[in-house]
């Protein structure tokens, strides 16, 4: 028994199964972050004390750096997929390695930010702005960690599929890439919404 359209495209839909699957997953992720963002909006609009919650305590330069790091990782992610399309595994390993490096870089910068907040006595329970900040960026960070696990697998042990089913492996990288771009996109919304506005 072989499930059809695992790697080849179904003619009438023009999709392989996993691609449709990841788009559906991302749709549900949009609803998750949509819920989180609308909660943020509602809390902020209904709270007269919001201005006193110390949004300026956040470190904008560090977050800008983090935005750059994450966007770079998205570019290298595309490059790793393109390299596979061009049959160049060496380049794939290079770009995937860079993607992973950037992801770890993001986590380290985030760690610095978090620990400086904690050392100043700023916790999620302090006020609702910090609660929103920690929960939204924390959930985003969990998504980054999830991406590292998946990409790390394709960088290491998962790569052996390239030798047996190169087409399918390339699809896997495309799907992982779609997820990674989504994680990047969420940050691009989080950054202005939390740090700048």
């Amino acid at each position, binding site marked *: *028994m072989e*499930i059809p359209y695992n790697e080849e495209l179904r003619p009438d839909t023009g999709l392989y199964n996993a691609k449709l699957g990841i788009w*559906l997953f991302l749709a549900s992720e949009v609803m998750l972050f949509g*819920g989180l963002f609308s909660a943020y909006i509602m809390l902020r609009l209904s*709270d007269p004390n919001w201005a006193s919650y110390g949004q300026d305590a956040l470190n904008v330069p560090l977050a800008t750096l983090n935005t750059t790091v994450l966007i770079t990782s998205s570019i290298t992610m595309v490059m790793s997929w393109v390299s596979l399309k061009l049959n160049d595994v060496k380049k794939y390993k290079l770009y995937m390695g860079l993607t992973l490096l950037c992801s770890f870089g993001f986590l380290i910068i985030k760690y610095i930010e978090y620990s400086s907040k904690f050392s100043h006595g700023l916790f999620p*329970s302090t006020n609702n702005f910090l609660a929103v900040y920690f929960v939204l960026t924390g959930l985003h960070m969990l998504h980054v960690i999830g991406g590292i696990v998946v990409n790390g697998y394709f960088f290491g042990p998962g790569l052996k599929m390239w030798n047996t089913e190169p087409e399918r492996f390339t699809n896997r990288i495309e799907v992982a890439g779609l997820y990674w771009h989504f994680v990047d996109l969420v940050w691009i919304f989080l950054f202005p919404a939390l740090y700048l506005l």
Partner: protein
Amino acid sequence: MTDTHHKESFWRKYIFSIDHKVIGIQYGIMSLLFLLLGFGLMLVMRWQLAYPDQPLPLLGWRLSPDMYNSFGAMHGTIMIFLGVVPVITGAFGNYLVPLQVGACDMAFPKLNMASFWCYFVGGIVMLSGFLLPGGAASSGWTSYPPLSVVATTGQTVWLIGMVFLITSSLLGSSNIIVTIVQLRAPGLTWMRLPFFIWAQFVTAFLLLLAFPPLEAAAIFQLMDRLAGTSFFMPSGLIVGGAATDWAGGGSPLLWQHLFWFLAHPEVYVLILPALGTVGEIIANNTRRPLWGYKSLVYSVIFLGFMSFIVWAHHMFLTGMGQTMSMFFSVTTMIISVPSVVILSCLFISLWGGSIRFNTPMLFALSFLPMFGLGGLTGLPLGLPLSDIALHDTYYVISHFHYVVAPGTIFAIFAGIYYWFPKVTGKKLNEVLGKTHFLFSFIFMNGIFFPMLIQGLAGVSRRLADGGQSYAHAQHVIHYNEFMSMSAWLLGLAQLPFILNIILTLIKKKDKVADPNPWNSTTLEWACPSPPIGHGNFEKEPVVYRGPYEYSVPGHKTDFSPQSEKLGEK
């Protein structure tokens, strides 16, 4: 497509199976057990309502008001999230969707297994609340803060269990959508899909898109409980006469919005696959095509869309403002239109058919008026003015139980009797089945109809003594005993059903050799009963016609299977 006969270990075959049929059966067994458990909790609660503060017979203990709350919360949670939805999407969806679209399995078999095990873990985590000091969650299945945030640890366990269940439904629903879009057999165009598939398709979208906001809300509530945040905690909250530690500034209404954003579509998750099931059975047993197939399909899609913008009609009492109430009241009136279209199509389908009154058909037929009653009693609740009077009374309990209990659960029974031969190769006994139907029908109404009367008299729901202490309840309070009797008898009425399944399964020789005992047209009957191990079909099916070609003039039988070549007589 032939069966690859490599030996599988016991664990792979029955426990961590990736075969959609085994997973469907696993879902079925688990969720039926959960249904029984949720029903059992209610049977205990009904004793407290009929004879307040008297010790339970046999058990000897008294159900305290706190435990009553806890049982009530868990009854709702178990019935909806662990019982009905997993039967109708997990069991029916998993088992039947690949068969009806002519696929060899679900699109992602491993995710499918993960989905079941997330559901299993979520259920166990949630039940473990009963063992905690302070008992299981007791803030209702809606878990409204701030009450739920200051509640005992059972609530934390409830939230963690919920996150598992949401994950499970995410995996399951995306799997169902991909299977329907990508794995349809050649020739099975969209307008040739059985109505059941359309219902499952829309339902899967509802689960996929409505659950994540509840996940967000569950995370917020967990943070409120564990990390001391104040997402749902207003300023200046006093609990038990003392000020609390929460910084405040949060909004309890925010939870209600996020919760009902899921929980209203969830109502359609409960009802749409039930309508699909009933549609299949009615077409098969009237021996004529479903009336208005296209309007059924478009209505289901429209219902799916609309169900996302009616959620705040559960919140008229919160004082959220006239404009909001008006908007949601209008959308609520609009959403009743496609529901009526569907019900009318199913009713008109009966006209002129030569109806076979077998057990599945009896359940399906009684579904129609019962769901109709549930739907019609919902209209006054959709208008803010009448809702304010009725909302906190037994009227609401009666309304949604009419939709779900003699509605969806009857559809589930119908489906079990109808597809049992497909799953096991054996037909259930008709006499026991009809006994089960007759008494279930009588006692269901014995429970829920008096609730309408009590509700209109203004008897408040959620009271552990059933409203004994209120003057305005005195002339209707005697119904409590009658309803409790009905509930216990309804419990007894399930014995023929359980007995029927056990007896049929242990009888060896009762095999129906015919893979299509109901003379049905859809694809699930084009493969052997039960379908072969991996791959389902002996050869890949090709579809030549629509789903309900019954009694086609000139055809030698009164049904023309979808996989039968045109021109073959």
